[in-house]
């Protein structure tokens, strides 16, 4: 957990980044600076190849996106040959666009429903139920949940289409509701359930590891004192795993926010009723060819990501302060 002796440092608080850059406090400074005797030049050589690739294929496209966002660049037509810089027009257009605002609202529902409530809640419930189990039960449950997480997205999308299909779907067969068109009537509910199914593994694994930090004797004491499960969770467990809860929420919110997989299930439809932001950007930029406008919306998405990250990190920072 947080080591409060180290000086406050904004970058170490990056997404789960608390493991980076924290040196052993017992190590003398001189040894810490270059323990392996690498020397600056050779260390540079070690980092350089990776760095070059990151700059070429991550930083340059990222900057390019920011540049495209202020142009009217399109894949076809007049503006394709001679793109003009249009300033903040794309941004004002986006903010005034009904479709963008409804997409943003759907994305918030998606993040809250499937990540914060669905994945984190279910993940914690599974981790809690498995906490003192070992052997086959634990392995099987973990393996299956993990499987849902790492199967190829086009495969899981197809699984869910088959599951929710109107005529031959498994769900209708199981529930005895023939002809129920889940993807047409409840598109958002479907993709939220889908993403909960898909992403619970990470929360489960993280909470599983976190719960090992809670001494069983404390729980035992609480139980003997007559605390209910809810009271045990609130007063004994939660204070010890707070950092993990926040890290987990941060990561799954960002992943869900940027998740493109629902496109494969509903393609944003029907009538854009499940068109979350990544799907919207894909449709505008790559299907519609409006690269400039799409880039502007991508940049807005990045800003929202940053806001989410900052809110979580500030909360985490306050907790650390409070525990000092």
């Amino acid at each position, binding site marked *: 957990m947080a080591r409060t002796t180290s000086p406050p440092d904004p970058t170490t608080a990056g997404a789960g980044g608390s493991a980076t850059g924290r040196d052993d406090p017992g190590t003398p400074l001189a040894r810490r600076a270059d323990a392996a005797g690498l020397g600056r030049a050779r260390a540079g050589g070690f980092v350089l190849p990776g760095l070059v690739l990151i700059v070429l294929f991550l930083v340059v496209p990222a900057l390019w996106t920011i540049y495209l966002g202020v142009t009217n660049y399109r894949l076809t037509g007049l503006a394709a040959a001679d793109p003009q810089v249009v300033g903040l027009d794309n941004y004002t257009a986006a903010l005034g666009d009904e479709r963008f605002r409804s997409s943003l609202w759907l994305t918030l529902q998606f993040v809250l429903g499937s990540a914060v409530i669905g994945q984190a809640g279910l993940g914690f419930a599974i981790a809690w139920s498995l906490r003192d189990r070992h052997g086959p039960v634990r392995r099987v449950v973990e393996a299956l949940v993990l499987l849902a997480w790492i199967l190829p*997205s086009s495969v899981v999308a197809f699984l869910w289409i088959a599951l929710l299909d109107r005529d031959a779907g498994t769900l209708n067969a199981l529930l005895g509701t023939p002809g129920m068109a889940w993807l047409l009537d409840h598109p958002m509910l479907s993709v939220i359930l889908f993403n909960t199914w898909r992403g619970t593994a990470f929360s489960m694994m993280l909470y599983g590891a976190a719960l090992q930090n809670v001494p069983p004797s404390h729980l035992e004491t609480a139980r003997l004192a007559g605390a209910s499960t809810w009271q045990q969770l609130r007063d004994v467990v939660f204070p010890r795993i707070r950092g993990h809860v926040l890290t987990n929420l941060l990561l799954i919110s960002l992943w869900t926010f940027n998740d493109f997989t629902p496109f494969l299930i509903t393609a944003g439809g029907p009538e854009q009723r499940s068109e979350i932001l990544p799907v919207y950007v894909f449709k505008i930029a790559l299907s519609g060819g409006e690269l400039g406008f799409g880039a502007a919306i991508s940049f807005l998405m990045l800003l929202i990501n940053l806001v989410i990250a900052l809110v979580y990190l500030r909360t985490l920072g306050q907790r650390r302060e409070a525990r000092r």
Partner: protein
Amino acid sequence: MAASDTTVAAKWRWGLLDVVVVVFALVPVLWIASLSFKTTGTLTDGNFVPREWTLDNYRTIFSTNQFVRALGNSIGIALIATAVAVVLGTMAAYAVARLDFPGKKALVGVSLLIAMFPQVSLVSPLFEIERSLGLFDTWPGLILPYITFSLPLAIYTLSAFFKQIPWDLEKAAKMDGATSGQAFRRVIAPLAAPGVFTTAILVFIFCWNDFLFAISLTSTERSRTVPVALSFFTGESQFEDPTGAICAAAVVITIPIILFVLFFQRRIVSGLTSGAVKG
């Protein structure tokens, strides 16, 4: 005793939850596997166990160039990207873990920031860059972005592993006359092997599963990978329902992933949570 009664009841309740989770996770997967063994006629009968078993769907996909090429592309691209990303990631992570150089914190911070950048927003500039470099619809055109996108995670996970290795080992190696390079290769790299292996699995899974880059940066069978080929599937003729073939293809690309989970479950779990939990 009343107290133990309630714990038994609670255990049962939680056990029930576990059963529900297993069913929840397993039903869609089994459904696909079952569909892939059904004949065209019985595809929509709604039976969980196929009435007539057949391998026709598998024969169909392995006889089409479309699927076989795509499978070759998927395997080649994912293996090369994983190998390169792990080598570059190991080198960079070693330097990050062992040396305080100026701008190190900024480097780590920036790479995490970029890793948070929505993948979909980098697709259009990458498309432009690759078209002008002639990389569009080629193997390197997918391999390079895969390497780059997995590097931040690889560096991050690997540097957590390197930090666990005591530096006295390198000093001892050098005392015995090894150079830095030798110390790294002979002493540190073998010790870090489990971490490297875990990272390799994670990177491979990422490349193997990717859909967004694969559909945006390819246009023909030359470099199209299986996840994308799946979405272009049609039956043998236009009028044939491709469901059976799609299911068979889905099962084929799922097999390596299932094997990874079966054999390396513990490693995957520890690799994914190590960074976040040590915090």
